């Protein structure tokens, strides 16, 4: 088969520009840029709870409020698919690794694995 360059409707070349990049790629990039990253929505109270949890531990998380992001809705959908949850936020990354939503964060704290993760990522000392 032959495809005319002038009429590219015969096949599609995905364009890897920032305009149409996968929202999860943006998530991964943002997650790797700080020790503790929280994807949040400013009106979400569970997000407020997870932020307070970190602050109470002396950790200063980097928070991305998705309702203030032009691509926020896309990212929300992507996070929901990633975690298989019915709510999109909060989602927590530590040291670039996905921890999960509130339930996972609390389970990790109770089992004593959260603090070592935070120390490893450089978010907590002593």
């Amino acid at each position: 088969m032959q495809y005319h360059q002038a009429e590219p409707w015969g096949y599609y070349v995905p364009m890897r520009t920032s305009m149409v990049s996968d929202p999860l790629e943006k998530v991964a990039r943002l997650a790797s840029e700080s020790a503790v990253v929280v994807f949040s929505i400013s009106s979400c109270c569970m997000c407020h709870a997870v932020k307070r949890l970190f602050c109470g531990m002396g950790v200063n998380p980097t928070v991305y409020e998705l309702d203030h992001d032009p691509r926020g809705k896309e990212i929300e959908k992507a996070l929901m698919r990633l975690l298989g949850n019915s709510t999109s936020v909060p989602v927590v990354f530590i040291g670039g690794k996905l921890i999960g939503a509130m339930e996972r964060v609390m389970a990790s704290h109770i089992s004593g694995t959260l603090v070592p993760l935070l120390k490893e990522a450089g978010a907590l000392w002593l």
Partner: protein
Amino acid sequence: MLGWTTRSNQEEHKPGDKLQRRLAQNREAARKSRLRKKAYVQQLESSRLKLAQLEQELEKARHQGAYLGNASNSSRVGFSGTVNPEIAAFEMEYGHWVEEQHKQISELRKALQAHITDIELRILVENGLNHYNNLFRMKADAAKADVFYLISGKWRTSVERFFQWIGGFRPSELLNVLMSQLEPLTDQQHTNVCNLRQSSQQAEDALTQGIDKLQQTLSQSIAADVMGVGGYGQIDAMENLEALEGFVNQADHLRQQTLQHLSQILTMRQAARGLLALGEYFHRLRALSSLWAARPREPT
């Protein structure tokens, strides 16, 4: 008696009147005292009977799954609404749960006094933990049906309600109750329990602050333009209310995780003692509620 004799010597001329009056006063005082004592004993007796009656009613009501609750030990002002069958089912299931809890506590007590093997003890401990897991499962279903019912604590006794935190017990408080009962702990165990207590305290604080924020947000949205004619964003308010279920679920999840992790820190025998202590503690809260409800009250 010495003063009495002296006085009667002094007033030899009229012994009759004053003496007779004093004797009469004495008799009257003694009679009144006897009557007061009799009344008090009768009050105690009738309170005892009333308590027994209330306990019977309580048991009956639980078996019948009375959704409308026990008027004797709860003051439900302004209860309205239709009977929710899932909530009625929860009430009944919970009644059975409490009965089963009593049985397990008795078994644990006997087992710890006797010389049973670690394997048999393990079965009792796992049953005990599973029993709590069943409660959390029941509560999750009830939260879906009516989160306000769950969070009101209507399904619990009055003293339990006094200690309530987001629809159930406060994990860190539980650890406080248990810590003294679980001695002797190794140094490592002691450290682990202290860390667990601190972690659960921090998680509790975070959830509490989340719910406070929810209250604030809801209040603000309801109060929007309250003197105007346009109404307010009811859809937003409804979304806020839906978020409450999430908090109740997270609180129960925290309770479950705390119990689970504690059982991992402890030896089998310590875990058995811990379950016994916990069960007995909650039983005492319930019993105290009954006692309070049956207390003799002054007629107003």
